[in-house]
């Protein structure tokens, strides 16, 4: 812990929002890293993160080209793209000049210079760090990030893509990216966040996003986590939703030795809708933990969740989904589904879908299943002349495809489908 204190004291950006950063750091010191005695971390031990000393990234010149970025993160040419390499914004790789004039997209550093009050008013307001040590750590150490502000009624057609790349220079270092999104009433846009790596360095990414979805606004938020398999990834997204707003989150994860993805949404306005979906494919000794928390505060809101996991090797999957319904949130319609497919003998899954309901006129359900591939299905396919490997690959792909189909952004869906297909077909041919 003292290493963090030294690093904090030496922080290069100690000038901005010093009070917020100080209180966040104090909170982190008080909380410490969570242990498995903490109910929210019961199945995920972060000892590997806590025991390591992650240093700030060494400054170095970027050697990646736009072509490399496209190879790593995908995306279309008309997407508005911001690229960070080892936590540092790379202007030469980014391209978001085509955005409508009224939309503000800038790095956190830049916004702090241009309109510090905008940041001061909002940063840390949604993502509380009282009970979340990693959020506190990010708030204390965040150096840069992205600020997106879409004014009332503005519709941005092409997605905003934020790419975080780590390469060998990030080995042994930690990066704390921050994202602040303000979607004013009736605005509509899509965000794609990519977390990728060059090679297999071991580093620690601790990301925090705060998303304010205004009345009637529609925000699609895709997160593709394909970090290095030696890396650690903790990501928290905290959302608040206004009246009749729609927030759609999709979390795709194949990377990191240890990852934890939190998606929390608070539905404060009547008639809001939240869709939280996710797919994770784990292999080797990987560990992936997904947590969702849907708070139905206002009446007449709907939430839909579908998370699927495919576990191979001796990997370990964790899903913890909670739906809370406030006494005032009558006519809530909540549905949560979680399925895990265990491909290998050593794979393991722990799932905890929870409902906490304080209003009576509601309809809430959750379902969870864990199992291996359907033997009857495999037999049927074999009887139709498909060999066992291909049958397994097809059934596994079909299991994943159900959740991938919920991605409305065609280019991304095609890319992820291809990725998953390649993953299993390649395996079946090995």
């Amino acid at each position, binding site marked *: 812990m003292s290493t963090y204190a030294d690093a904090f004291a030496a922080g290069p950006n100690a000038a901005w929002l010093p009070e917020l950063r100080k209180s966040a750091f104090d909170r982190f010191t008080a909380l410490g890293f969570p242990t498995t005695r903490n109910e929210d971390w019961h199945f995920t031990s972060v000892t590997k993160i806590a025991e390591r000393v992650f240093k700030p990234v060494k400054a170095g010149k970027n050697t990646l080209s736009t072509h490399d970025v496209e190879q790593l993160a995908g995306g279309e040419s008309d997407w508005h793209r911001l690229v960070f390499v080892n936590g540092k914004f790379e202007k030469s790789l980014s391209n978001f000049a085509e955005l409508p004039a009224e939309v503000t997209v800038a790095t956190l550093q830049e916004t702090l210079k241009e309109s510090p009050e905008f940041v001061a008013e909002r940063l840390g307001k949604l993502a509380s760090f009282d009970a979340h040590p990693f959020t506190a750590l990010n708030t204390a150490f965040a150096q840069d990030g992205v600020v997106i502000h879409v004014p009332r009624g503005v519709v941005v057609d092409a997605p905003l893509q934020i790419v975080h790349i780590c390469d060998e220079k990030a080995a042994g270092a930690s990066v704390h990216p921050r994202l602040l999104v303000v979607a004013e009433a009736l605005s509509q846009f899509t965000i794609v966040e990519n977390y990728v790596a060059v090679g297999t360095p071991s580093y620690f990414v601790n990301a925090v996003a705060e998303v304010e979805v205004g009345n009637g606004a529609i925000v699609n938020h895709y997160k593709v986590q394909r970090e290095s398999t030696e890396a650690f990834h903790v990501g928290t997204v905290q959302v608040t939703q206004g009246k009749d707003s729609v927030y759609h989150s999709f979390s795709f994860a194949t990377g990191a030795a240890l990852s934890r993805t939190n998606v929390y949404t608070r539905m404060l306005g009547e008639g809001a809708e939240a869709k939280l979906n996710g797919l994770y494919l784990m292999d080797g000794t990987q560990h992936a933990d997904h947590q969702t928390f849907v708070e139905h505060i206002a009446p007449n809101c709907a939430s839909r969740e579908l998370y699927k996991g495919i576990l191979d090797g001796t990997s370990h999957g964790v899903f913890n989904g909670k739906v809370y319904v406030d006494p005032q949130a009558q006519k809530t319609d909540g549905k949560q589904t979680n399925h895990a497919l265990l491909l290998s003998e050593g794979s*393991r899954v722990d799932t905890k*879908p*929870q409902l906490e309901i304080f209003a*009576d006129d509601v309809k809430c359900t*959750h379902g*969870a299943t*864990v199992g291996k591939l359907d033997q009857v299905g495999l037999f049927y396919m074999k009887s139709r002349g498909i060999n066992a490997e291909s049958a397994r690959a097809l059934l596994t792909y079909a299991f994943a495809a159900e959740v991938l189909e919920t991605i409305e952004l065609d280019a991304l869906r095609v890319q992820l489908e291809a990725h998953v297909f390649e993953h299993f077909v390649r395996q079946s041919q090995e």
Partner: protein
Amino acid sequence: MSASIESLVNKEYAYGFVSDIDADTIPKGLNEDVVRLISAKKNEPAWLLEWRLKAYRRWTTMTEPHWANITYTPVDYQNLRYYSAPKSVKPLQSLDEVDPELLKVYGKLGISLNEQKRMSGVAVDAIFDSVSVGTTMKEELSKHGVIFCSFTEAVHNHPELVQRFLGSVVPYSDNFFAALNSAVFSDGSFCYVPKGVKCPIELSTYFRINAAETGQFERTLIVADEGASVSYLEGCTAPKRDENQLHAAVVEIIALDDANVKYSTVQNWYAGDKEGVGGIYNFVTKRGKAMTNAKISWTQVETGSAITWKYPSVILQGDNSTGEFYSVAVVNNKQQADTGTKMIHIGKNTKSTIISKGISAGQGQNSYRGQVKVLPKAENARNYTQCDSMLVGNKCGAHTFPYIEVGNNTATLEHEASTSKIGEDQIFYCKARGLSAENAISLIVSGFCKEVFKELPMEFALEAQQLLGITLEGSVG
């Protein structure tokens, strides 16, 4: 609200009377001397006293668990009496020797021992303020070699069995309340069904707390030897008192190879009044261990108690063993229940089924908390879980906390849960067919709980349905 409903709503807790029976009590408070005193009063062998003392010492190092979704005024463990027994208890030869006052009490409870003995073919062991007062049908049972007696008797007459199985499923160090029970338990039931014997009648225990400021700590031990089978019923009531009373029981079930044990409870401890004053704190540890091809089935109907903290569990130790849990939990007024089960799959081809129905009314808070754990060696484990909650009124809460932990890829687990309001369209349909709103609700709730009620023995099923009606009516208006 119709007049009949009105009267039902305001219906007194029928079992809330206090019986004026001379009781042998000891001073309040808990320390090693109290543990020794209880043991001495029961004339126990040294090994049992030693076990109690170990439990007590462990208990002093433990802290009360607070992870459950319940809030209550803390229990002052030094302000409780840990032993209270009706004075007239002597070793009884026959029912005729039972204090007529006591018999009257059981008459009020509707379980006249004599009646039970002659008519229903159910053997009853009634536990009154921690001490067992009469076990019926003993002769009938002994013909088959079935031992069914109070725990104290078992300690004296069958020490080898008690010593072999006591604490083998719930060790004294298991949890705070189990440790407390192990230190101070006063009596309970003991049942042993020998190899290959099908117990000819259903066994039953009736628990009642009578004395004030007394904790009830009974201990039940059921052993079904290889190939044996037994069905065991348990009922409970307590008087109405303004202060909260503590009930911390332990039930252990051992089902050896090919054995089959069915355990049913209708729990109707005093729930406190409308304002939440009084009522029983029910902190109970119930667990069974099923060996090869054995089956343990828990069925519970929880309508009473101010606080319920109870997780009847099955350790599926042997290959092909089966565990079942059927539960109906109802909370009304200010009752709180945090209840569910644990199914620990250790053996191969083990199967478990969980059906839980929660009904919340008034300002009641009802939580289902369950764990299904499949250990890496448990090939082909199978679990099906269904938890449904029904909400009646807008001040109550229903919560679901399932833990599903799977360490073997040949396991198949399914979990579904739903929470919804009682169906207005269903009520409308029933009303259109000439049923009153109250009857419609009663019908819908019965249907909602049907899967669990059908697991109960006949007479319990009827009692349970009536209890449910009484607990709920009045919450609907």
